[in-house]
């Protein structure tokens, strides 16, 4: 537990020291939203708004998290290997990436609704969906990024490996966020929320169990 906190602290320090990476991500999201704004102006149709939002979110996530294992040099990985428990490493990475995704998604939501319009009727539920979606995206992508970084051709492998695995998560998230936009109340969405939570827990548990096998080389 102590280890996890220290590792997260280290991640945040690292990010703070090289701010250009985080700023670059914000710029990435901003530029993508701006391109969508220029090509669509305003989106009135709810399904299109929703799908586009989550696609931006997906690509931002892949870009943000792909580097989480890639940026570590071989020597530093060896250093962690000696120092820390692999389970603490994967959990700390997932938690850190989750925080990063959460920030990105809030930024994305603000900027997106500013430029393209905001049809969301049930905002708390939508924010809750953002939370769950970021959690799912970050945990799957962290795990896949670990696999891809060990495999070598990380940049090319990342989307190929992650998109099919993300499908069930993304479909459920999109459905839930569509309900939030349409203004359905919580009771109607109980089932979807439970499925999404269960999926998240499952992914994190799988990562927790399987990561030690990829970590040792």
């Amino acid at each position, binding site marked *: 537990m102590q280890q996890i906190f220290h590792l997260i602290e280290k991640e945040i320090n690292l990010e703070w020291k090289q701010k250009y990476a985080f700023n670059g991500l914000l710029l990435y999201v901003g530029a993508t939203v701006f391109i969508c704004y220029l090509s669509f102006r305003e989106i009135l149709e709810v399904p299109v708004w929703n799908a586009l939002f989550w696609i931006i979110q997906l690509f931002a996530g892949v870009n943000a998290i792909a580097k989480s294992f890639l940026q570590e040099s071989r020597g530093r990985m060896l250093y962690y290997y000696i120092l820390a428990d692999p389970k603490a490493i994967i959990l700390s990475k997932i938690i850190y990436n989750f925080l990063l995704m959460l920030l990105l998604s809030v930024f994305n939501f603000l900027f997106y609704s500013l430029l393209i319009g905001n049809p969301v009727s049930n905002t708390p539920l939508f924010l809750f969906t953002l939370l769950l979606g970021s959690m799912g995206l970050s945990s799957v992508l962290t*795990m896949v990024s670990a696999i891809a970084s060990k495999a*070598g051709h990380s940049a090319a*492998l990342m989307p190929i*490996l992650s998109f099919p695995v993300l499908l069930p998560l993304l*479909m459920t998230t999109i459905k839930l966020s569509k309900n939030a936009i349409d203004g359905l109340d919580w009771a109607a969405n109980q089932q979807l929320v439970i499925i999404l939570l269960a999926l998240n827990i*499952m992914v994190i548990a799988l*990562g927790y169990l*399987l990561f030690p096998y990829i970590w040792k080389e």
Partner: protein
Amino acid sequence: MLWDIYSFLIFGRNNKKRFRNFELNKKLMKENILQIAWWKWLCVILLFYTYIAGFLIPVPRLPILHESIRNLFFHVTIWFSMIIMMGASLIYGIRYLNSNNIDLDIKAEQCTYTGIFLGIIGILTGSVWAKNTWGAWWVNDAKLNGAAATMLVYLAYIVLRGSVDDEIKRARLSSVYGIFAFTMMLVFIMVLPRLTVSLHPGNGGNPGFGAYDLDKTMRTVFYPAVIGQTLLATWITEILVRIKRLKQHD
């Protein structure tokens, strides 16, 4: 004499040069074509039974489906055997991670190849059926999307395998990815379609193979067909594994 004809048919003209070794000849003679394992015989018999009975037995006349309900014996059983193959691949993956025995990784890989092959056949047979029953080659249906996503996952699995050169690293990474992907796929094909309405027979009020529609005569063909297809898939996988082992020893 008989052995000469037989060896000529199997090994071609050069067999005498190639198999001068008497011991080897004796061993090959023992492996007569009729002496294959019992489950291979069972597979042949069950598949013959499936393809003959599947077309001949009376089936219930249901609206929309009519005679095309017979696809249950061929298309659905192929999907069953695909899922079983993928499950076998998952089990071999887990066993590999526990034991680090590279042979298990070969088995996992070849099970996946057979599974992909069956999946492609499943999509093709389903597509032909859909064209004649629903009027389109591809429709936006939860089960079809699940099938397509499964194919994507396993193609990604093959790409991952191809991108790593080191044998042990490849085995470990692909086992982990296989376990990860298979669990997500199970959710995608087993859980999510139950939340939405599917066009498939037996779902969303469509007539089909539900509890009371699937009558006794159809069951007598369906279950043997599933077993037969799975045995055939196992047979294919066994041959693939043996080829792969020989290649590795070269």
